[in-house]
Structures are given as structure tokens and as C-alpha cells.
């Protein structure tokens, strides 16, 4: 295996895209973009990556071009964040409907109103329901590895769906840390060239993007749902193979010190590492606490989740987004829903933290655990709670 080098996580992601030997990159190069596409444009301009780099006029066009490129049979990539993703929104729905195996890095940043460029998960949660496979990285190495995994899964003939790799803006994207990169040859041991099952070809014409009249729309929806649910097997197999080839193992739900823990925190993304440090400190003080986090968010790993919480009595879910006027964070609501018909189920308490770049600290996790413990003892707590709000 190669040597770890010090590199900014965004640049490492571009190196993963280079290792994947993509054919086309479409991106709108303005805030809220990151160094990912900036570095890719340099790699292409310097002849270090044999690909088309198209600086389109908006994110809407970026995703439109990605679809055209993918339909022509090219390995296709883009990256975006927050408002950029929102501008893309209309076309984000079209990519899975056309079964286009596009890979997109979503550097998670908060949706504006008030204007913000900082980190939370409000962007990805706004695109939760549009049939993209969604994974979350906790550190730079994972961001690199999950990018290769994304191409492997998306292009698998049993899947043919787009994949969104999520990584936290700033707290991950702008950090320099040690990461092991791969060359195209090393990545090629795992990721084979894309072989489209169907593509735009004048010799064998097909229709892509037809009208879904009421007589077929429902059936089409059912097919998308079947496809993304079935993709889980490929996702897990692709992680297994990744572990066999490179030695780094990934699972849809990752756990840390959950065995015998009285309270288990649930997180997604880079705050998970801070949570682990908090857990170590709390365990030193004799507090029995562990951590569980979703690496795979779509398709929702229902069976794995139910298995993972089997012996857990209290779950404290930490969301990085809020669904206004509902019951709190999207992760919390899905977690509770996943447990409703289980005979034995943990008490679940919802917390919302780290919105719009508010730092999620070790102290915050200690506060959340102490609150969850209090509510568990009483047998009830608030429907959900926002952490660290200044109200005076």
C-alpha cells in the first residue's frame, strides 16, 4: 500500500476522480464550489487527466450535461454544494429516472436564508427523496475511498443509478490531513472501465426520457424504488471487495463502543470523529456511551439498523438539518419510524446541532448524552431539541 501524504481533502477527492479515470467533468466554478473542480480543471488542462472539463453556465446545466454525457456512455462526474445543488434540483430528479450512473460529490453546506456558506446537512436532506444512492464520509480517506466505491456501484449493470458522496463542507473539505492516494493503475484493480448496457447510438436508436403518462408513471416509480432497494446488495459487495483489495473496510452502519453501552449517539459525517473523542472522555468518567452512524443513507439500511439497535436501550440522534414544522431532524424521524413496529425498541431522543457552521464540540456531545440520560430516566423528553441555541 502507498504512503499517506498531507493533502487538502478537496484535492484528495479530485485525485480520486482522476484515479477513476473519468471521461467528463461538468461544473459551475463559483461559490459554493470547492477546490475539487478547481483542481480537476488543472489536471485536465495540464494533460494529467484525459477527460473533458466543461465549465458550464450554471449547476442546472452541469447536471443536464452530466446526463447527456452519461447517456452517451461516458464516465461522468460533478461536484456541488448547497445553493448549487438547489439550482440543480430539477435535473437531479431526472438522472436516476434515466438510470444514469453519474457520480457527484456533495460538499455539505447549509441552505441560505439567512445567507450562509457553512456546513450542515440541509442541502442533502432537501434531495433525500430523489432516488440517488447517498453515502457519507467521516474523514479525508473515506472521501477518497467512497468516491471510487461510488463509480463501482453506480455503473454496475444491476444498479445504474447516480451516487452522491457526501462530505462536510469546511470541517472536512478545507482540512489538510494525511491521506493515501491511488494511481489509475492501483484504482484499476478495483474499478474496471465503464461498459454501458445501453447508450445513445445512431445505429441503434433508443428513447431516453420519454413522457410518463398516467398509464405508466406509477410503474416507472415502482421500478426506481425496486432499483434503489436492490442496489444495497451491490453497495455491500462493492465495500467488501474494496476491503479485500485495499484493506479498508466499510459498512452501511458503523459502530463504536456500542457493546453494552447504556446510551448510544447517532450521527452522520465528520462530527462522528468528534463524537468518538467525546465518548472516550465520557467513558473515562464512567459514563456508558457508544456511537452508531449511518455511512449509507440511501437506500436506508433498515435491516442493518434494526440489527444494530437490538440490545440498545437509549438512542440520541444528532441531526445536522431540520425539517421545519415537523418533528425535528430527518434522520431522527426515519430512525423512529424504522423502530415503530419492533416489539423491543430503544427510547429515541432527537437533537439538532451544528447548523450553518456552528461548531459541534466534545462538550456538546456530553450535553446531549446527559440530556438523553435524564429523559430516559423520566421515560420522556421533548419531541426534539436544538442544541446550543442562544435565546437571551
Amino acid at each position: 500500500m502507498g504512503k499517506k501524504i498531507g493533502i487538502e481533502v478537496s484535492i484528495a477527492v479530485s485525485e480520486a476522480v482522476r484515479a477513476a479515470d473519468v471521461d467528463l467533468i461538468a461544473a459551475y466554478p463559483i461559490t459554493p464550489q470547492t477546490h475539487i473542480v478547481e483542481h480537476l480543471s488543472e489536471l485536465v488542462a495540464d494533460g494529467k487527466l484525459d477527460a473533458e472539463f466543461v465549465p458550464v453556465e450554471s449547476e442546472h446545466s452541469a447536471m443536464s450535461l452530466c446526463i447527456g454525457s452519461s447517456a452517451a456512455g461516458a464516465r461522468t462526474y460533478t461536484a456541488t454544494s448547497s445553493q448549487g445543488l438547489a439550482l440543480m434540483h430539477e435535473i437531479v430528479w431526472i438522472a436516476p429516472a434515466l438510470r444514469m450512473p453519474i457520480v457527484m460529490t456533495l460538499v455539505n453546506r447549509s441552505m441560505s436564508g439567512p445567507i450562509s456558506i457553512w456546513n450542515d446537512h440541509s442541502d442533502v436532506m432537501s434531495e433525500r427523496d430523489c432516488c440517488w444512492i447517498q453515502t457519507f464520509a467521516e474523514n479525508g480517506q473515506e472521501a477518497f475511498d467512497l468516491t471510487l466505491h461510488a463509480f463501482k456501484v453506480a455503473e454496475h449493470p444491476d444498479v445504474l443509478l447516480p451516487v452522491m458522496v457526501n462530505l462536510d463542507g469546511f470541517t472536512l473539505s478545507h482540512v489538510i490531513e494525511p491521506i493515501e492516494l491511488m494511481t489509475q493503475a492501483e484504482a484499476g484493480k478495483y474499478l474496471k472501465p465503464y461498459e454501458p448496457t445501453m447508450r445513445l447510438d445512431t445505429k441503434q436508436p433508443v428513447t431516453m426520457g420519454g413522457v410518463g403518462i398516467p398509464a405508466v408513471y406509477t410503474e416507472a416509480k415502482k421500478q426506481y424504488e425496486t432499483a434503489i432497494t436492490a442496489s444495497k446488495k451491490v453497495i455491500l459487495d462493492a465495500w467488501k471487495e474494496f476491503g479485500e483489495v485495499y484493506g479498508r473496510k466499510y459498512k452501511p452502519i458503523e459502530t463504536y463502543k456500542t457493546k453494552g453501552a447504556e446510551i448510544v449517539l447517532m450521527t452522520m459525517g465528520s462530527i462522528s470523529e468528534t463524537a468518538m473523542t467525546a465518548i472516550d472522555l465520557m467513558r473515562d468518567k464512567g459514563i456508558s456511551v457508544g456511537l452508531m452512524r449511518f455511512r449509507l443513507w440511501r437506500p436506508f439500511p433498515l435491516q442493518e439498523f434494526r440489527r444494530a439497535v437490538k440490545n440498545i436501550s437509549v438512542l440520541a440522534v444528532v441531526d445536522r438539518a431540520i425539517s421545519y414544522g415537523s418533528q425535528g431532524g430527518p434522520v431522527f424521524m426515519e430512525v423512529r419510524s424504522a423502530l415503530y413496529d419492533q416489539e423491543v425498541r430503544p427510547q429515541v431522543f432527537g437533537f439538532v446541532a451544528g447548523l450553518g457552521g456552528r461548531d459541534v464540540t466534545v462538550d456538546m456531545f456530553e450535553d446531549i448524552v446527559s440530556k438523553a440520560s435524564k429523559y430516559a430516566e423520566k421515560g420522556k423528553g421533548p419531541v426534539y431539541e436544538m442544541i446550543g441555541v442562544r435565546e437571551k
Partner: protein
Amino acid sequence: MIEIRFHGRGGQGAVTSTELLALSAINEGKYAQAFPSFGPERRGAPVMAFTRISDKPIRTREQVYAPDIVVVLDPTILQIVDVTAGLKKEGIVVLNTSKDEATIRKTFGIKAKLAIVDATGIAMQNLGLPITNTTMLGALIKATDVIEMESIEGPMQKRFGRIAEKNLNALREAHSKTPKTE
């Protein structure tokens, strides 16, 4: 784990300092993180940036609240920011100033260990610019031994190319002029 907080003004290269430091530590086979305080980027406004260095993998993403070392790139920052906030008990402040230690302690009430150097003067002489980020790295290395002098050369060459040597000269001069903290 050693946590270092840099104070400077937007445009003075605090972020670059933290990155060069982390890259040098990683080249030494250590684990390191470098990241800015994520705010609006405005030239001249007070900014912070952080480096963590450890022999073990670093598993935290929060900002640095209790630094072991504080590096101050710009002496005027002292008038508006409490640079010693959260500094650990045995913590060290590495400060760019042309004033003497007694005056600084008296004016700003700093009780922590202090290593001072006239980095602006050194930078003006070597670079012709009051940009002190690389100069202050020399002072930091001398005062704290947080990395080896040799380790910084590679990352500096890579980052600055043809102006690397000038920056290295400023760094070396600051290294020789900074007292070692006890």
C-alpha cells in the same frame, strides 16, 4: 497531541502557516490536521487558523479551544483579541513584536510563557513585505521544537517555488533570533 492556534489578519498567510506546519509534521510520519477558522474571508480582518499534531490518529473536528501554543503574526491583534484565551497552563505564546518582553507583559497582561521576535522587521528585510507567516514559523520551531527545521524545507519549496529561498531565509533568521522557551 499538540494544538496550535495562529492569530493574524486576512491576507497575512495564517492559513498557509498552519498548512506548512501540518505538511511538515506529516512528512515526519506524524498525524496532523490544518484548518482555518471558517468565517467570511476579508483582507485585514482578524483571523484564526489551527494545526493539530499527534503521534496517534487525530479523531476530532472541533475548533481548537485550549491550545498548547498560540502564534501571533500581527502585533496589532493584541489590542482587539485576547490571544491567550483558553491557552493551556503550560502554554506558550509566540509573538511578532518590535517591543521588549516587559512592555508586552505590562501592556497586555500576558502571564504565559512568551517568545518574541521582530518578525515584521525580518520579513521587510528578506521579502520586502510585512507578510510574517513564514518568518513566524521559524520563531515557532525555535521556541517549541514542534517540528524539525529540516522538515519545513520540502513543503516550503513546493508551496513557494522561486520565492521559497527568500522565505526560508526569513524563517532561518527568525529561528536564530528567537529565544528558546524554558
